């Protein structure tokens, strides 16, 4: 066994990866099922090694606004929370998106609405993908389905956040956060120096030299025409993400007659459903979106030309199913199957839904 293979929880992988890729600051407030993120960071004490700041803020609202400050200085900053805490952060997130401040926000989703339950759910899809805060903005939303991807998406998230000057969200859930799997952590990198930040992020507010105009980080433009122009710039950026950053994974899609679309922990359950179905001779495939925004609409549209029907499986009352329907545009029927409030569907239960809704339907 290679020394680099570790066994750890998804939440721990987030923390370990953050230290290793040279994140400058973590600001958070504890909430189940993601508390191991800050616990791990505090135990590792990276302030003594990489110089990374780890701070338990007084609230989620404080955390997200600390990201505004740190990200505005061109630093790699992140927070993590779970559903109710992420709701508290929505004002901050729309300001970060409006002011084009890069940062990483991890949501280890639990069942809602309200205080809900601490068990896993996927009912924050709309909030993550369709806004959540006010105004026309989008987060880049990544949906890891394994502990390895929890670690990988920290790096990917920061790469995208700085490429587009946009907040990135990792939309995980209690299953991926709490389970342990094998993981190979990213190679260690030191944090950016002040000089590197100035060179890589010339927009960062690190003090004004005489050689240039001052940098301004704001989402406020009181003149409507300026604000419209700013909005068009943001929309062009989101369009570019749709063209360049879509990620997905396919299982047994090549000859599929029926298709499941599922992300995160649901996609793991559905992978097993596909295995069982294939054993029974049912030509079932699975498409797993890795980016939820931008959504793999084009590939789903292509597959709709081939399959007889699509089932969106989510631990929600049916949220991503709307994006699947928009992608398919009426070409084939699209159904939803889900469990709510912290319940995880079983692979055979999903197969029953495939049988009833897709094959029988």
């Amino acid at each position, binding site marked *: 066994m290679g020394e680099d293979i570790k*066994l750890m929880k998804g939440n721990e992988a987030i923390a370990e990866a953050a230290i290793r890729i040279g994140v400058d600051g973590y600001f958070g407030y504890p909430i189940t*099922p993601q508390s191991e993120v800050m616990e791990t960071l505090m135990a590792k004490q990276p302030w003594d090694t990489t110089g990374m700041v780890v701070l338990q803020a007084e609230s989620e609202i404080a955390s997200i606004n600390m990201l505004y400050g740190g990200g505005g200085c061109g630093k790699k900053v992140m927070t993590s929370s779970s559903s109710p805490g992420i709701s508290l952060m929505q004002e901050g997130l729309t300001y970060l998106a409006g002011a084009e401040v890069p940062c990483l926000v991890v949501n280890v989703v639990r069942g809602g609405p309200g205080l809900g339950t*601490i068990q896993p759910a996927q009912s924050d899809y709309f909030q993550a993908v369709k806004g959540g805060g006010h105004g026309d903005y989008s987060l880049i939303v990544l949906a890891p389905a394994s502990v390895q991807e929890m670690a990988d998406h920290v790096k990917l998230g920061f790469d995208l956040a700085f490429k587009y000057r946009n907040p990135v969200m990792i939309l995980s859930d209690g299953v991926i956060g709490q389970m342990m799997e094998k993981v190979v952590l990213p190679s260690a990198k030191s944090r950016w120096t002040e000089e590197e930040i100035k060179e890589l992020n010339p927009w960062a507010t690190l003090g004004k030299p005489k050689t240039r105009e001052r940098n301004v980080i704001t989402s406020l433009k009181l003149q409507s025409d300026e604000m419209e122009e700013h909005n068009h710039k943001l929309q062009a950026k989101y369009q570019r993400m749709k063209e360049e950053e879509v990620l997905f994974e396919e299982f047994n899609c090549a000859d599929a007659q029926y298709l499941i679309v599922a992300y995160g922990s649901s996609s793991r359950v559905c992978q097993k459903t596909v295995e069982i179905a294939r054993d029974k001779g049912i030509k079932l495939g699975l498409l797993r979106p890795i980016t939820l925004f931008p959504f793999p609409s084009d590939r789903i549209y292509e597959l709709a030309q081939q399959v007889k029907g699509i089932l969106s499986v989510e631990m929600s009352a049916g949220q991503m199913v709307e994006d699947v329907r928009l992608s398919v545009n009426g070409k084939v029927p699209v159904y939803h199957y889900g469990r709510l409030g912290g319940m995880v569907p079983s692979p055979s239960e999903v197969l029953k839904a495939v049988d009833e809704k897709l094959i029988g339907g």
Partner: protein
Amino acid sequence: MKEEIIIAGFGGQGVLSMGKILAYSGIMQNLEVSWMPSYGPEMRGGTANVTVILSDTRISSPILHEYDTAIILNQQSLDKFEQQIKPGGCLIYDSNGITHHPTRKDINVYRVDAAEEAVKMNSTKTFNMIVLGAYLKVKPVVVMENVLNGLKKSLPERHHHLIPINEKAIERGMQIVNQI
């Protein structure tokens, strides 16, 4: 090879750490592994369980509703999981505190009186390792060398002096497990 296991008992019995040691042993044997705990509002004395999967191919769902093997350490867990064992699968249980014994005829049932044995060995904390030994006797999915390496990986270094006593407990579990 794919082995899907549920380990269930009281919080504090070492259910989660036993699963972790098994998972680490799997890694040492170059297997794919997953370890999914019940993480509800558990506490010492409440119920706790963990699903461990060892496989030589990529693992799909880490959450299962039927198992190849159930390792059961209290009555509540026996009541809950006996029906979720695949036909032909294995049930290994400690009879300590069990009033309603397993009834299924289409599975292989093994009994290990680990709690009793741990008291005899004057080492109640190695209870879970006796159970692990019983499991490894019934299902030798990982070799002993890899289990010991897994123990080393899973225990913090300050506890490494406890490895010999854990090894002894595993061996004892292998000796005292009985098919019913």
